[in-house]
């Protein structure tokens, strides 16, 4: 053990530190520090040149003061001077000061870099390491510019000491992360990969971090590392615990290196080479087997290290998601951990199982642990473990266990920690809706939610229950009865009053036959809550009252009296006063017929209300709104607005205060004709394709809708909405993608990958927020396959994975060409070889309205030529597709047959693939 005379030689520092520790108050501390700062300043400014030791001592004191949380605005120069000292400790303190107090002062950076350069070329390994540590600690762009070229050379040079290699590898990694453009591996790639074979385990341990990072960014260039990693792993896994000497940690051979190797392999798909794959599977099996062996030590370090490797192996197995046998074994292993006495292992098992639940091979196996997980939710003492249990329940939920899981989550909510209630509420609401088979269960669940955790039930949730009740007539009576009962509780949450007011106002008549819930009883019950409620709720109740007058004429006198009272008609709140006045007048002058018409039952909720636009406008930039507006308009044209009619949790009725206007006075009244039948509406909501069907295949229903238009909503589920705005000129295009988070919870680890290059997006999407991504497109040659966009993010605990075809189609690069009839037919004849023509005859799947057809053909990008075809019913178009490689002239003829409801579409172009592709795309549009 080195003789440590604590703070050797720096007595002054030790005295200063004890002085600070003896300060009784913050003020005393500041006073002592100011005194010291003044002292140091005068020493630095003094005429007498300071010796290295004093300089070191004062710089160290400054560092201490800074680390205490005080600002330091001098001393940098003295620290830089220390760098060029030839005394090791002085240099060391100089570097430490620089590392902690980086200053972007360019003059200093130049001096610092100069000192580093000297140390790097000193050939003294201790100095070289100090310099490399400093670069890694600062990691600034200036340093990358100065040293990114030099460090790879040090890393792979044959005569570099091992310790220097280790520092160089990690230093390079840090520079690469900060300024990837400056670190060019090029010629070094293969020598760096071969560091995996280095004899020194420490070198491999350091180098593999660098290799993993580089591989994840450039998998192809580094793919030779896979087989090297597998053989290294295999050697470690099969070694006895003593073989690796000091790299064995508490009887576990090289845990850090093993984990890093397993992590590196997660940058790649399973190895294609059978032998390599076989060897790897063997390793994974050995690791799983070892978990069953009795521990070689009782120390927690032993089990932690061993299990760290096991969890990393399980991550790899889940990443491959292709070996059912290993997946199930992994699941069983985690199942054992669920009941382990170590809290840490229970926590990790719950967390890891969450990802396992989304694999088709192991979903069922995960489900078998439901009782244990529910028990964890109930009995774990630690909130973060309970949180993981809740996440796992959410992830393992499907139709078969939804009722049980929702019930357990609800009962957990009664005692849940405040920090996680809102998320829990949202999860329960989503599961209840997603897996509802009978809606009375759904209604019960949401009302329970409000009863148990009313404060945490966001507007979206209670709007949604109202929408569903309005749209499903088979649940209305039940809903009315249930809210009526719920309102009888002496204290009920305001959200319950809102739901109750709305539902009784609409459907109170369905329970009015029972004398226990006669109209007057209903009214008195609602009105008994009135005075305890906030203004928006009161406004809603007033609307419910006027609806009562229509539903139950016998309540008219009572209600009119309430409306007429001073507290209503002279209310200081303008909104309430206005409602009272207007409703009173309406009820006294309108005839029964007029009243019945005005106060008719709410029509089913249509596809989109103007209120969503209002919400969007409120939250997002003008660009996004115009996308929405255009989308609404165009969709209306294309398919009559009928096919995707799901108002969902967040889109619902979000007019600000006064919320949920019963009469729709404020928002444009929904047009009932445009709304699809309630049945189909709900089928859509409750279908499996909801948000938790996380790893569905490529979703391309949005894709074809964009052949003839450039803006709109590409994708939407309950969590995420993706809007597109794009523009094309010649062979170039630009596409803006807008990712909107529809929930109130943030998405973390948000990433998108395209099978071409894109700029990355922000990794975090806040609840209700939107991020934008721009993609520049150049059409090199004609193509069939659209680029694939892969979106990943975490919502709550569950990983969401969405694959979409980006609607980039060959026709986007059309330049319209106007031409006369003679020209057209001449060119048409020139393109008469059989392969130049593509033709399709197909049935009309939409109406054959002339204007719509024209709009679509124009949307295709071609010129629509008038007076060319002898038959005025037919359409002909011409355009040139611009690619970088060539231009392809293209002629089109569309012959509708209104009687047979059929079309014949003919395409001719100078390139067979183009004719075929445009024909295929267009045939789907009519």
């Amino acid at each position, binding site marked *: *053990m*080195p003789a*440590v005379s*604590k*703070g050797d030689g720096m007595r002054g520092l030790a005295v200063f530190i004890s002085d600070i*520790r003896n300060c009784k108050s913050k003020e005393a501390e500041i006073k002592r520090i100011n005194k010291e700062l003044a002292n140091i300043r005068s020493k630095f400014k003094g005429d007498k040149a300071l010796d290295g030791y004093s300089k070191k001592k004062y710089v*160290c004191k400054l560092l*201490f003061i800074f*680390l205490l*949380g005080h600002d330091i605005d001098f001393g940098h120069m003295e620290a830089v001077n220390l760098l060029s000292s*030839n*005394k*090791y*400790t002085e240099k*060391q303190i100089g570097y*430490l000061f620089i590392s*902690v107090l980086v200053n972007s002062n360019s003059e200093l950076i130049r001096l610092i870099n100069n000192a580093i350069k000297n140390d790097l070329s*000193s050939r*003294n390994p*201790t*100095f070289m390491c100090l310099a*490399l*540590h400093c670069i*890694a*600690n600062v*990691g600034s762009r200036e340093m990358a510019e100065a040293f990114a070229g030099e460090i790879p050379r040090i890393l792979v040079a044959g005569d570099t000491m091992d310790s220097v290699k280790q*520092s160089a590898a*990690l*230093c390079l990694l*840090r520079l690469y*992360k*900060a300024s990837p453009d400056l670190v060019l591996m090029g010629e070094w790639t293969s020598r760096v990969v071969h560091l995996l074979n280095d004899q020194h*385990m*420490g070198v491999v*341990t*350091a180098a593999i*971090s660098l290799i993993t990072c580089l591989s994840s960014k450039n998998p192809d260039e580094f793919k030779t590392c896979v087989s090297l990693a597998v053989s290294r792993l295999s050697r470690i896994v099969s070694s006895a615990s003593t073989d690796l*000497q*000091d*790299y064995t*940690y508490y009887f576990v051979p*090289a*845990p850090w290196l093993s984990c890093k190797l397993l*992590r590196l392999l997660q940058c790649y798909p399973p190895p294609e080479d059978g032998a390599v794959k076989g060897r790897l599977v063997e390793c994974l099996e050995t690791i799983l087997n070892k978990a069953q062996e009795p521990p070689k030590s009782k120390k927690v370090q032993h089990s*932690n*290290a061993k299990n*760290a490797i096991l*969890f990393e192996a399980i*991550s790899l197995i889940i990443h491959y998601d292709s070996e059912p046998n290993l997946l199930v074994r992994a699941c069983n292993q985690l199942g054992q951990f669920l009941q382990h006495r170590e*809290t*840490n292992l*229970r926590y*990790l098992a719950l967390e890891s199982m969450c990802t396992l639940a989304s694999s088709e091979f192991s979903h069922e196996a995960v489900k078998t642990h439901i009782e244990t997980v529910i028990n964890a939710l109930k009995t774990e003492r*630690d909130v*973060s*473990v309970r*949180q993981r249990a809740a996440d796992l329940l959410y992830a393992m939920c499907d139709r078969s266990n939804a009722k049980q899981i929702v019930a357990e989550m609800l009962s957990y909510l009664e005692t849940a920690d405040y920090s996680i209630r809102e998320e829990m509420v949202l999860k329960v609401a989503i599961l209840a809706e997603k897996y509802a088979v009978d809606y009375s269960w759904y209604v019960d669940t949401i009302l329970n939610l409000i009863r148990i955790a009313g404060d945490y039930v966001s507007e979206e949730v209670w709007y949604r229950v109202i929408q569903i009740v309005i749209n499903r007539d088979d649940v209305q009576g039940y809903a009315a009865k249930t809210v009526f009962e719920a309102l009888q509780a002496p204290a009920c949450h305001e959200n319950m009053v809102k739901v109750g007011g709305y539902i009784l106002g609409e459907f109170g008549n369905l329970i009015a036959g029972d004398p226990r819930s006669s109209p007057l009883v209903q009214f008195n019950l609602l009105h008994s809550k009135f005075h305890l409620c906030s203004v928006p709720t009161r406004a809603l109740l007033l609307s419910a009252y006027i609806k009562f007058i229509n539903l139950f004429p016998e309540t008219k006198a009572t209600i009119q009296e309430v409306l007429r009272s001073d507290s209503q008609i002279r209310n200081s709140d303008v909104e309430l006063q206005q409602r009272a006045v207007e409703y009173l007048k309406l009820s006294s002058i309108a005839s029964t017929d007029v009243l019945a018409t005005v106060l008719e039952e709410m029509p089913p909720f249509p596809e989109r209300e103007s209120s969503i636009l209002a919400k969007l406008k409120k939250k997002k930039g003008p660009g996004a709104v115009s996308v929405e507006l255009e989308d609404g308009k165009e969709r209306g044209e294309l398919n009559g607005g009928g096919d995707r009619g799901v108002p969902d949790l967040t889109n619902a009725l979000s007019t600000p205060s006064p919320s949920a206007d019963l009469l729709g006075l404020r928002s444009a009244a929904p047009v009932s004709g445009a709304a699809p039948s309630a049945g189909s509406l709900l089928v859509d909501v409750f279908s499996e394709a909801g948000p938790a069907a996380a790893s569905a295949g490529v979703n391309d229903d949005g894709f074809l809708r964009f052949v003839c238009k450039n803006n709109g909503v590409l994708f939407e589920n309950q969590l995420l909405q993706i809007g597109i705005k794009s523009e094309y000129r010649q062979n170039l295009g630009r596409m803006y993608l807008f990712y909107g988070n529809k929930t109130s919870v943030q998405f*973390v*680890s948000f990433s998108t990958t395209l099978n071409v290059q894109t700029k990355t997006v922000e990794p*975090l999407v806040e609840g209700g927020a939107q991020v934008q991504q721009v993609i520049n497109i150049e059409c090199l040659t004609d193509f069939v396959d659209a680029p694939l966009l892969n979106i990943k993010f975490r919502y709550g605990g569950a990983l969401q994975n969405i694959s979409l075809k980006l609607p980039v189609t060959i026709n986007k690069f059309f330049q319209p060409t106007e031409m006369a009839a003679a020209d057209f037919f001449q060119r048409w004849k020139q393109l008469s070889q059989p392969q130049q023509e593509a033709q399709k005859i197909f049935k009309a799947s939409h109406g054959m309205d002339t204007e719509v057809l024209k709009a679509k053909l124009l949307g295709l990008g071609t010129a629509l030529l008038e007076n060319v075809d002898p038959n005025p019913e037919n359409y002909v178009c011409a355009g040139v597709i611009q690619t970088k490689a060539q231009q392809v002239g293209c002629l089109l003829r569309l012959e509708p047959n209104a009687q047979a409801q059929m079309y014949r579409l003919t395409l001719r172009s100078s390139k067979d693939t183009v004719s075929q592709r445009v024909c295929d795309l267009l045939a789907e549009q009519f």
Partner: protein
Amino acid sequence: MTMHFLLLFSRQGKLRLQKWFTPVPEREKKKIVRDMTTMVLGRKPRSCNFLHWKDLKIVYKKYASLYFCCGLDAEENELLALEVLHRYVELLDKYFGNVCELDIIFNFEKAYFILDEFLLGGEVQETSKQVLSRSIEASDMLQEVSVIPRSR
């Protein structure tokens, strides 16, 4: 093992060591330190050693009067991080001999040097206790000895 930061603080929430492996503005550093100390110190005894905070995993462990707490990327291995903390404690212990909080207060610069030998840029540089102790000792031997630059 990408670590974003490593903090050592006392039961009273006094920060004893702070190491930032990624660039963080000073204001944000203060906020993180505050969040970490309140979060970790507020935990009941015998709770698990892991937490989620924003999009980071937090791993902490208490050794005597000191809490060791680090922030990791979301996909990192918590158990391994726990052993990183442990190995660091072992290194401090070997160097100071029965290390205590006071050693770290009065010799904070040594604690930083030892850490630099072990972790660099948030990654494990060397795991062998022998190798690490040797190089820490070697630099101690250089304490006040002038190193004459080799002529080249």
